[in-house]
């Protein structure tokens, strides 16, 4: 009997090496969340050269910056933005990670898993061209940088910029023309960013 109890006791001693109380927790900084995002609309001049459209900067052009931050990640309350019919804009995404560092290049460096969709505009009012270049100098369709051309007038509407984190192999089935595909959810994956803001497509500088 004593031997049995001794054996049980010995086992208990050995096993007490396993932790008997919880560790002090360490705060995790959520790296998977984008910390903040800014969309910058810069007016550019579209130049058609033998059917090939190039975009050049316009000196003194005034940028439109839409900042999404804070807990709600919504643009400033009550703001809406004007874009001119006939004008082209370079749309550039600035994103920051959990530590406030620029992170938009991670989308380009993983171009096989990312693509932005620009949604919500009335049919025929906008045109968009992807203009990202990866580290090897190749053009890739991601949407961190692109050119948006306003084709027709439209009253204020909510425009969405969705940066899609795509499942493996999905990107191969997406074309550049899908930039405004409202069925973008069929390109399965996750949203890294889903930015909504109100926009008004105006003619001859006539807004309100």
């Amino acid at each position, binding site marked *: 009997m004593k031997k049995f109890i001794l054996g049980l006791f010995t086992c208990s001693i050995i096993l007490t090496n396993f932790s008997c109380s919880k560790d002090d*927790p360490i705060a995790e900084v959520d790296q*998977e969340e*984008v910390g903040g995002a800014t969309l910058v609309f810069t007016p550019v001049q579209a130049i058609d050269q033998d059917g090939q459209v190039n975009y050049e900067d316009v000196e003194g052009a005034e940028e439109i910056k839409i900042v999404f931050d804070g807990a709600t990640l919504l643009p400033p309350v009550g703001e809406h933005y004007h874009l001119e019919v006939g004008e082209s804009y370079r749309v550039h995404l600035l994103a920051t990670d959990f530590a406030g560092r620029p992170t938009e290049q991670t989308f380009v460096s993983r171009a096989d898993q990312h693509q932005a969709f620009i949604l919500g505009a009335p049919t025929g009012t906008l045109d968009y061209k992807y203009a990202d270049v990866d580290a090897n100098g190749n053009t890739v369709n991601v949407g961190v940088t692109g050119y948006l051309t306003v084709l027709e007038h439209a009253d204020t509407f909510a425009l969405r910029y969705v940066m899609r984190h795509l499942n493996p192999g999905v990107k191969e089935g997406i074309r550049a023309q899908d930039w405004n595909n409202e069925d973008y959810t069929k390109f399965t994956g996750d949203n890294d960013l889903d930015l909504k803001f109100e926009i008004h497509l105006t003619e001859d500088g006539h807004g309100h």
Partner: protein
Amino acid sequence: MRKWRILFLSVFLFYGMTSKGQQGCTLQIKGHVYSSDGNPLQGVIITPQAGEQIVSDRRGAFRISQVCTGDLALEFRYIGYTSVTLTYRVFGDTTLRVTLQDDPIHIKDVEIMGEKSGSLSVNTHRLSVQQKQESKGENFAQSLSRIVGVSTLSNGAHIVKPVINGMHSNRILILNNGIRQEGQQWGAEHAPEIDPFLADRFQVIKGAQGVRYGADALGGVVVVSPEDINTERALSGRVDLTGQTNGRGGATHGRLEGLVSAFSGLAWRVEASGKKLGNYKTADYYLGNTGVQEFNYAGMLQYKRERDDLELYYSHFGTEMGIFQGAHVSTIEDIQARIANGRPFESYDFQYGINAPSQRVGHDLAKFSWKRRLTKGRSFSAQYGLQRNHRREYDMRRVESDDLPMADMVLTTHSLDFSVQNDKSTLGVQGMMQVNNNTPGTGTTPIIPNYDSYSFGLFGIHQFHIGRLHAEVGARYDYKYLDIAGYRYQRDNLQEGDLTQYLLTDSRTFHNVSGSIGILYHLSDKVNWKSNLGLAWRAPSVNELYSDGLHHGSATYEVGDKDLKSEKGIKWLNTLLWQSDRLRASLEVYGQFLSGYIYAQPDPDSVRQTIRGTFPLFSYQQHDAFFYGADFMASYDLSEVFRYELSASMVRAKNTELDSYLPYIPADRLSHGLRWQYATEQQVGSYLKLSHRAVRRQTRYQPETDYAAPPAGYHLFDVIASKQFITRQHRSLIVVASVNNLLNTSYKDYMDRFRYFAHQMGRNINIKFSFQF
């Protein structure tokens, strides 16, 4: 791992120290006790004229040492059988074969009272030898679902949990080799970490078994245990090999066991199993990233003396499971698009590789148990269990590599149980200590915090036997202390528009008294009635109290409530058992009232806005609920060789406070089949079986709490052909060929959480070999 080895070694040496022989009479009598139909009887009390009582083991075997030359009288007693005293003249070592005759009125008691894990007034359902053979290679919950009233809750084909009478996860208790299985069982996508190859007996007890087993046994108990080591032969074993077309893989298992000749009474067993499957296919298409691979192993030492049984057991379960990539959803918009499409948008090819999202789970279990038989049929048992559950969940990450887990939790559980029992009573004390730690560095806020949990229980059960009536009463007291610490977001206090984290610390104490009362009444020699009224409870789980995070796969944001109270349930289970020469049937009817039933309730007025999109907010609430239903099972011998088998079950569940249906309650189901035993009775493993499974559409649901209406009902046909070859004594080979979903029916199941995205598995052709030597 080194600690485990040290533990094994120390106990091995400990055995050696206690095995010295004794002087005096040196003869040995061994033997087996059988029923009149040839089945070994476990638990027969054998009383020598002079000497200590002994009890036959699971093989009906017994051994009496230090017997003197001359006459020896042995009394054999076993409830349900006529007691007998036999006298032998002993001149040398003797081997006996004893057959006990049935006592027709009390024959049903044998099944119940000979089973230590069971209860007198609640029916115990077991997987038969044939069912176990047919289920080899399947996961644990799929194997169990052959038992009437047991269904499954799944996330695809590999992450599957058992559901008993509509309850799952923290509401059922799994007893793995005598130890409460403690993993992260709160999660609907967390399957039990049990390899069916390493267990030989699967039993389901559906009553509220809170008194005997403690907290959480609200819906029922699953008892999983290995056979005793075969001590009749120096070396024996088994090899299993299974293959299946759907997933293009299979599983293998090997077991070796034997005696240690240097230590009389010491036996050993080692075994290992492995599984590898690639993407599985529905009726029409493959599902990407749905492979699985497992490697499991176990070892056991058993030491038996006249009065003592000691056992040391260790097992490791290790699995890696891919999660269908198309089920990874981001927003409500995503999930609705996939529901509208009815099937995945992408086409996938077959592959074995597993990528994110995936799960890797390791579960180690060590057990040391000691049972001492005392005088007058009393015995004392002590058991220590140690479990370490390591769960890592991987997802497609934005910043870090996909190889870095999004969740990395280590749960360590120590348990210590003591009990004293005799023929009629059991008194027990149970203690458990748990430590849960989240491994830092995942780059995501853990869903559940770190915690310590201490629990203690004290129980007593007593049985009465008055003529045809048998009764049992039980009472239990439980205490649980929970202490947590974890970082959470301060959502109600934004600092300059930004979220800040704070350290949440909290402790909770739970007390509960539970009880049970039950009867077994022999209405006739063919019909028995069992009735059990059981009160069980559970403390709210850590995720229900403190979760605060996004659940991919369901596109929900879940928020716990740290003020939740214990959930208590009282279940009344009535069973009618019929057994005649040709018909065996059971009807179980139950009703269970739950006070403070805890569930995640969608809040239609509240969403969680993140930069990734908008998610519906589910908050944990508790309301009273009522479950009721019935399970029916029958087996009728149409002739000497043909048998018809049928099982059917239904369950209903409502939130009685809100008068609403509860989600994820199994739909009505029926399974029946015809079996042809085409070989002699000695080859019970030689038969053909055609079966049909029918599941109705679940019509009792709340549309506002689900993304889609439950899918249509379905019918499946399966065929099984089994052949048993007995090559020579102690050797047999069983070959089972089967086709599941014979007609390759395309269907979805309401209890599959992937039903939004994909169909269930299509036709699957299996071949299984089991060689025993």
